[in-house]
């Protein structure tokens, strides 16, 4: 019996030592739990329901449906490029005469198509099962989606780049996920939070994306959301090239250190 217990101890010891080498991952796990609890606390408050009615003139079901549908869309977009970093496949592609841009676009395209299909399913269930009423501004929706996807590809490239270096857990993806659920206007309007926290919402692109997409799906026009759209566009124009540069640099560093296939 004691020999078996000793074996169990060594299994655990192996895992703890291995786990402790991924310090970034530990920090991310703690932060995600903390901020997740905060998000759901706000979601359940009365203030959320009143604020949604007041600001968007829609019921909580419609508000949450659009928020959750596009949150799943962006969450998938955020990890699309990371999912392509199978270290062995990455090496095989990098030794081929294929450029980095082709690799990124090619690796993530199907993921986007699938995510779009999932959003359509979400919205269809909302409309046909829960009686949600949508009045879609098609051009506006396409513009907002394009800017949102662009921004999240930028974030995804930053996250994927950092993952290439840290190997497990990247702080960027975790921060973006936390920022989206807490400050992104996904589950509750930021206006229900204390003023100091509300200020953070206005510097994260997710806030502008979710605000704009909700309005474009419920009958608003582009001129009505133009200020939010311009801010989102500006953020997209900064984050995409920044993401590409960081991804390129991380890939180059991992190649120089010879750690590309270490995971």
């Amino acid at each position, binding site marked *: 019996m004691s020999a078996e217990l000793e074996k169990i101890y060594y299994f655990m010891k192996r895992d*703890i030592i291995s786990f402790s080498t991924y*310090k970034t991952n530990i920090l991310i796990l703690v932060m995600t739990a903390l901020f997740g609890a905060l998000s759901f606390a706000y979601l359940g408050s009365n203030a959320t329901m009143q604020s949604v009615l007041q600001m968007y003139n829609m019921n909580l079901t419609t508000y949450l449906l659009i928020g959750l549908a596009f949150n799943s869309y962006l969450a998938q977009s955020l990890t699309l490029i990371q999912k392509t970093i199978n270290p062995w496949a990455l090496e*095989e592609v*990098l*030794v081929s*005469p294929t450029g980095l841009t082709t690799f990124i676009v090619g690796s993530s395209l199907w993921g986007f198509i699938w995510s779009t299909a999932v959003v359509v399913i979400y919205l269809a269930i909302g409309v046909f099962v829960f009686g949600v009423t949508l009045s879609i501004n098609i051009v506006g929706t396409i513009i907002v989606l394009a800017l949102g996807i662009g921004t999240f590809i930028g974030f995804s490239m930053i996250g994927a780049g950092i993952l290439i270096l840290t190997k497990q857990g990247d702080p960027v993806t975790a921060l973006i996920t936390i920022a989206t659920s807490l400050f992104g206007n996904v589950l509750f309007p930021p206006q229900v939070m204390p003023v100091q926290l509300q200020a953070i919402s206005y510097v994260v692109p997710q806030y502008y994306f979710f605000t704009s997409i909700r309005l474009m799906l419920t009958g608003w026009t582009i001129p009505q959301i133009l200020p939010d759209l311009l801010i989102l566009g500006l953020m997209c124009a900064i984050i995409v090239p920044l993401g590409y540069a960081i991804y390129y640099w991380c890939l180059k560093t991992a*190649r120089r250190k010879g750690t590309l296939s270490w995971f």
Partner: protein
Amino acid sequence: MQNENAIQTINLTKTFKSKIQNNRTALFQRKKTITINAIDNLNLEIKKGELFGLLGPNGAGKTTLVKMLCTLLPPDGGTAKINGYDIIKQQMQVKRSLGTLFSVGERGFFWRLNGYRNLEFFAAIYNVPRQKRHERIMEVLKLVGLESSAFDLYQKYSGGMKRKLSLARTLLPDPPILLLDEPTTGLDATSSRNIREFIKNTVSQGSGKTVLYTTHYIEEAAQICDKIGILNHGTIIASDTPNALREKIKKEEQIFLIVEDITSQQIERLRSVEGVINLTENNGEALPNQKGLCLELKSVEQLPPIFDFLFEQKIRLVNFKREEPTLEDAFIELTRKAQL
């Protein structure tokens, strides 16, 4: 003048920093960092059409060299030329000239696609023209003997089939130069032999491609390679044909005799025959009435006086063997010398 070298490294260098963790290293403790010279000022030339074996123990730097040559790993010093193109400045041309098979190549495939679909993807990213793609895929599948399993799921392939598909992928763009990093690792004897024969007969001799073949199996390299380089601690310590490498460590001629009816006095007289440097008894293979004698001679010309002596003394010769050093002997001797 046309460059005859398919692969040439010029003072190629790569160092790695590695963190050391021992039994006293506590959790979250900063680990000691050491620097390792994986490739150390390496100068190597491989001629066009040559099947060159790169032999070295584990950790010698074989995979690091392959990864640098295929542009995956940037060098810290020096450079290399592939098909005349610089691995730092002309990466795209280098990639177009190469087919690379990594030692864990099977992980780079997509397990839920069949063999054909996997190759179709790689054919596209290796710029195989669309009109020729199907024909080329079927051609390489036939070459490696996977034609009948082309549409089986990759996850159902055996280890040997996966390796063959890796080879097929390497051959797909029909590159003039192949880098094959331990292509038979983990395979059974039959699969290994099939792949070796395929590389020698079809790839090298059949199509005239230049092949850099890394392995730590000595006899494997001896069987198929035109020339062998021995890599140790990132440096080539010897490079020649397998026979010339054996010759390099051959100091004296060694012969082994099994004789009958020989007395101790006759053994002592044999010891003093001209040209005999040393004589030792080795009765391992001899019967009770026989003696096994191991003689070191200055050269093979010393053999006639020895046979004359045996004939004059009426000593019956039962067996005669000329001892040749193996490539393994050469490898061990040369790596030992390099460490001194």
